[in-house]
């Protein structure tokens, strides 16, 4: 399905300065039983956000009212583990449109791009700077400019470029998805099928 267009996002952010955040933390397997894509945001980081009795863990950043915004800033190697797109859905459903980290796991990154959440990979130094800025002022804003491929800390004006392939960038700017593209070249694919030995 086509998704929201993404161009410039300026927002405060939630910090999660933990490395190797895996998809089982983002959404545990026991919450993957739905047959529709809705409600996953409630269980985002379920076991880090809630105690066993369902009460909130006050010290977890997503439960801390001083934080807000549409950007999640995670530690290195964010999204490792499973291919469950539910992890990206949960991130989206909670209200995030962008995840910033100094390193992403492949499948999670791909899944984000496929549903209109922008993964922005920054240097280790800039990631530290962002975490420090949020710690100093939880309302500090970050500007993510997809067209110019830059991420900027508004308070300091410090900025860094980020990579995205031009095809995916175009898709996100316009809210197109891959299935639209593939449907449009179906006859070419049907010709290709004839060449396959099995």
């Amino acid at each position: 399905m086509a998704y929201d267009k993404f161009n410039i996002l300026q927002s405060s952010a939630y910090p999660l300065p933990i490395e190797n955040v895996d998809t089982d933390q983002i959404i545990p397997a026991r919450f993957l039983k739905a047959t529709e894509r809705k409600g996953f945001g409630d269980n985002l980081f379920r076991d880090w956000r809630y105690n066993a009795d369902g009460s909130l863990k006050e010290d977890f950043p997503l439960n801390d009212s001083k934080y807000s915004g549409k950007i999640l800033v995670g530690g290195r190697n964010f999204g490792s583990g499973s291919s469950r797109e539910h992890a990206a859905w949960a991130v989206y459903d909670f209200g995030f449109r962008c995840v910033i980290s100094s390193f992403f796991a492949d499948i999670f990154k791909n899944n984000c791009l496929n549903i209109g959440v922008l993964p922005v990979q920054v240097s280790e130094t800039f990631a530290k700077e962002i975490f420090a800025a949020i710690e100093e002022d939880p309302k500090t804003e970050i500007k993510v400019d997809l067209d110019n491929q830059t991420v900027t800390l508004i308070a300091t004006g410090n900025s860094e470029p980020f990579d995205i392939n031009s095809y995916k960038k175009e898709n996100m700017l316009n809210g197109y998805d891959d299935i639209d593209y593939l449907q449009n070249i179906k006859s070419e694919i049907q010709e290709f099928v004839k060449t396959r030995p099995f």
Partner: protein
Amino acid sequence: MSSTLFDKVWDTHVVRKIKGGPDVFFIDRHLIHEVTSPVAFLGLKARGVKVMEPQRTFATADHNTPTINQHLPVKNPLSANQLKALEENSKEHGILHWGLGHKSNGIVHVVGPENGITLPGATIVCGDSHTSTHGAFGAIAFGIGTSEVEMVLSTQCIMQPKPKKMRINVEGSLGLGVTPKDVALYIISQLSTSGATGYFVEYAGTVFEEMSMEGRMTVCNLSIEMGARGGMIAPDDKTYEYIKGRRFTPKGEDWDKAMEYWKTLKTDEDAVFDKEYTYKTSDIEPMITYGTNPGMGMGISNAIPTSDTVQEGKATYEKSLNYMGYNQGDAMLGKKIDFVFVGSCTNGRIEDFRAFASIVKGRKKADHVTAWLVPGSHIVEAKIKEEGLLDIINEAGFVLRQPGCSACLAMNDDKIPAGKYSVSTSNRNFEGRQGPGSRTLLASPLVAAAAAITGKVTDPREFLN
């Protein structure tokens, strides 16, 4: 120009190259299960599209299935609903479906090879990261998200940038008590869980040449745990012998034609990799993990590393050990355990149960240990019985459950309770992976068997001399 095994398979599956973007990549065979496919089918419905090549997709129920009393209705209504959705979607689109209780049912990465769905030189995807398993046959196989499942269903293609290439060489033969699982856990402990991110791995060297097909599957299965999209091993006579005569393997003239192609599937001598690592089997002993990701593994006789010697930051490392209830510098040998899980797409095949039985034979399960032995498929289950392994494990105080993913990801009722320690032959030791609060020690079936007998972390070589 010389090319790698990976190049040879990848390049022949590119339908179209997009400048500055991904390749339109053709998928020969597609596996689906109940958890990651329902939303993809909803997408097809919303677009009014049918499955383009239904004979290239195969459905099996595994992630969310009970492992006891499979003949009874599934109790959890959400799980039952997912199973029903898989069945109905398969029926509507003409996809072969092996539901709960079907004789071909089992874990998707176990039944694929068993039925000859997995072939050398093929491209195979599934909405499951351990799809890398099928690389053992010289296939390019990797996990995809649900949006991509929808792409494959509707157009038999996905959009993928070509990954970089890595070769991992391991030279030497396996020592006593050392299994393919240990080789993989060793490599991951060296590379970390992100060391191969962005790469597709080829495994080469004597250890893989000598390894059985099932051992190769275990190694390729764990490729994702070092961040790689997948891993593969060049096909050889063992590969052809394994696949010959299976249900979906080409037959007769088609077999001969396929063989001509398969024989070309090896890396040219002067081909270049973006990265290359070489290890020796003499450095590999039975492995065990002590932390909360598969990279936190060590030789079973070692001590838990201190935070100044690891790649993680101090806070992340301490958080992990704190979760496990372990201290830096602790020995793992002798640590008390509560549960043993043998199964999963990593170690749920017949050789794994043979290995387990070889140690428990003539011994008794420790009283305080709960053991869940879960075959990867009905075919594996039948072999366990045929070969007399069931009698051996029953006599040792164990029972065999029915096939499924089970406690590997604990989507069904097979959950390790909070705080309990589980020696598991599965693939992930993430926090809560085997149930909220569970603590997982990843290991081989031999290490699992030794722990099940003694009730604590034990070097399996004690039982093998």
